[in-house]
C-alpha cells in the first residue's frame, strides 16, 4: 500500500533531538561520550514501535542506555550474553582491553540496567 512521505512519520517514531548518531561515523577520534563505540561500526538503529503502545522513552532509550548498548555490541570485549555488564567490563579490564572508565562509573552509579541488551530476550 502506498503511503505518502508525510505519512511515514506515523510508522517511524522520531528520535529525540538530543541524541546524535551521525557524529560517530565521521570522527576518527570519538568524543568521550561515544568512546564505547570505538571499533564497532554498527550504530544502534532506533527501534520501531507502533503508536498505541506506551512510549516509555526515558527508560529504554535515554543517552546512558544507548552508550551501554554500544558497549554491549562492541565485539572487542567479547560476547555480551549471559554475563552482566559490570562483569563484562571487569573482565575486559582484567584482560587489558582498556574499556572506557565512563562505562564503569555509569554501571556503578545505579539507575541503569545491569543486564545486557539481550537479557531475557533470547
Amino acid at each position, binding site marked *: 500500500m502506498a503511503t505518502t512521505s508525510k505519512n511515514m512519520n506515523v510508522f517511524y517514531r522520531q528520535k529525540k533531538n538530543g541524541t546524535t548518531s551521525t557524529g560517530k561515523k565521521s570522527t576518527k577520534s570519538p568524543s568521550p561520550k561515544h568512546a564505547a563505540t570505538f571499533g564497532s561500526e554498527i550504530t544502534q538503529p532506533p527501534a520501531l514501535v507502533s503508536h498505541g503502545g506506551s512510549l516509555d522513552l526515558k527508560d529504554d532509550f535515554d543517552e546512558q542506555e544507548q552508550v551501554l548498548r554500544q558497549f554491549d555490541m562492541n*565485539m*572487542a570485549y*567479547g*560476547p555480551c*550474553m*549471559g*554475563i*552482566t555488564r559490570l*562483569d563484562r567490563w571487569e*573482565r575486559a579490564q*582484567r*584482560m*587489558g*582491553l582498556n574499556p572506557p572508565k565512563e562505562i564503569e562509573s555509569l554501571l556503578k552509579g545505579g539507575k541503569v540496567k545491569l543486564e545486557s541488551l539481550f537479557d531475557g530476550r533470547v
Partner: protein
Amino acid sequence: MEVDSQEQLQRKQSTYLSLDENFEIQKEVYRGQQYSQIYFARLHMMRTLLYSLVPNWKSHLPVCTVLELEEGKECIIVGTLYKHMKLKPCILDEYSKERSVAPLIKPHNFMHQDDYLVLEDESGRVKLGGTKLSPSVYVTGVVVALHGKETSAGAFFVEDVLEAGLPPQIERPLKSREDKYVVFVSGLSIGSSSSNPLQFQLLVDHITGHLGDEEEQGLAAEIVHLVIVGNSVEISHGLLNGQNLASKDQSRLSEPFKELDILLTQIAASLPLDIMPGSSDPANFALPQQPLNRCLFPGSATYNTFRSCTNPHCFELDSIRFLGTSGQNIDDLTKYSEAKDKLDFLERTLRWRHLAPTAPNTLGCYPFTDRDPFLIDSCPDVYFVGNQEKYETRLLKGLEGQLVRLICIPRFCETGVAVVLNMRNLECHALTFGTQISS
C-alpha cells in the same frame, strides 16, 4: 627369617605443592552463560600470545582480522579453528527426514576425507584451503596464526601455520639429586569384573615395603609419591539406571568404594597419595572434574597424606612440575583426529598450549566466563595421561631447551602395569604385576 633388622628404613620425602586452584569451580557462579565466553577468553589469551610470536616468524607481513581480508593480499590471520566433520554426530540428525551419511553403528573415529577447516574470530569466519593445514591433525578449538591469502572463491589459501609452540619452562635448580620415584597407576576399575584384587594388593604391598628382602624394601623406600590417575572404581550400569535400588543392591553400590578405601588406607599410612577422578568415577562429568568427595574414603581421608585432586591435576614435587589428566582429553582427540600414537596427541596439546582443545565442542566443559583454565602457561616437566591402552613414554625436547617427559599410563585392570618415574633424571619404567606382560 629375621624378625628385627638392625635399622629401620626411612622413606624419602619430597615437598609437595598443589597447583589445582585453577581447576576448581567452587567459586564459579552460573549466570546462564553459554560457551561463547570461554571461547572468547581462549581466543583473546592465545591471540595476544601469537601476536607476540608473529614478528619473529614473519615480520614483513601485515596482520589482519578475518573480515579485513582482501583478495590476493598476503597477510597473517589469527583465530580459532573449526573443523567441519561430515560424520560428527549431530542432534539434528534425529530430526532430519533424509537418510544421513552417518552409519547407524557409531564409528570410533569420526574423520572423513571431506572434512575441512574453517578459521574464526569475532569478526567472521573463512574456509581454509591449501594442503599445509591437514584436517586430520587439527581439531576444533585450536588457536593458530595462518599466513596466506584470500582466493577468488572466498576461501583462505594457507601457505604456512604458526602454532603457539611449547610454553616456556621454569629452570629447575641443578642440585645433585638422589633417586626419588613417583608411581603412577590408573584404571584400577575396582568393582568391575575384570579387576583382579590381588594385582592391586601386590602393588600396594610393594610400595609400602611389605614385599621382598631388604634390597627390595630399600627400593620401595625411595618411592615418594603415588598418583592414581582416574577410573578407580567401576559401578555396574545395572545399578545406575535410575530405578530405586532394593536394599540388597544398595550394598553392591558401595562395595567398590569400601574395597578401594581399605587399600588406600594402607597406602596413605605409608606415603603421600593423590587420587584423581576419571570418567567412570562419581565426580561431575564436565571438565574440570572436581575432587572426589572425602566421604567416599572414610578410612584414608583421615590421613593427611591422602589428597583428593581435580582432573586435570597439576602439582609440584621438589619443584618438578607435573601436569596430567585421566584421559578424557586424549580420548576425545582420538575420536576427532589421528596420529601415529597417543604420545603424538600429548605433544600436540603441548604445542597448542591447550590441555583439551575439543572442549567444549565435543568434550563436556564448565562454561567459564573470564578464563580458560585449560591453557598451559608454563611447560611441565612431566606430562601424563591415564587410562590408555598401553604404556608409552617419550622425552620431548623443545626449541628453547624445554624438556618434558610424556607418559601414557595404561589401565591397571587390563594390563597390570604401573609406571615409575625417577625424579632425578626423568627416566621412566614400567612396574608389572601378575602374569601379564606389558608391551
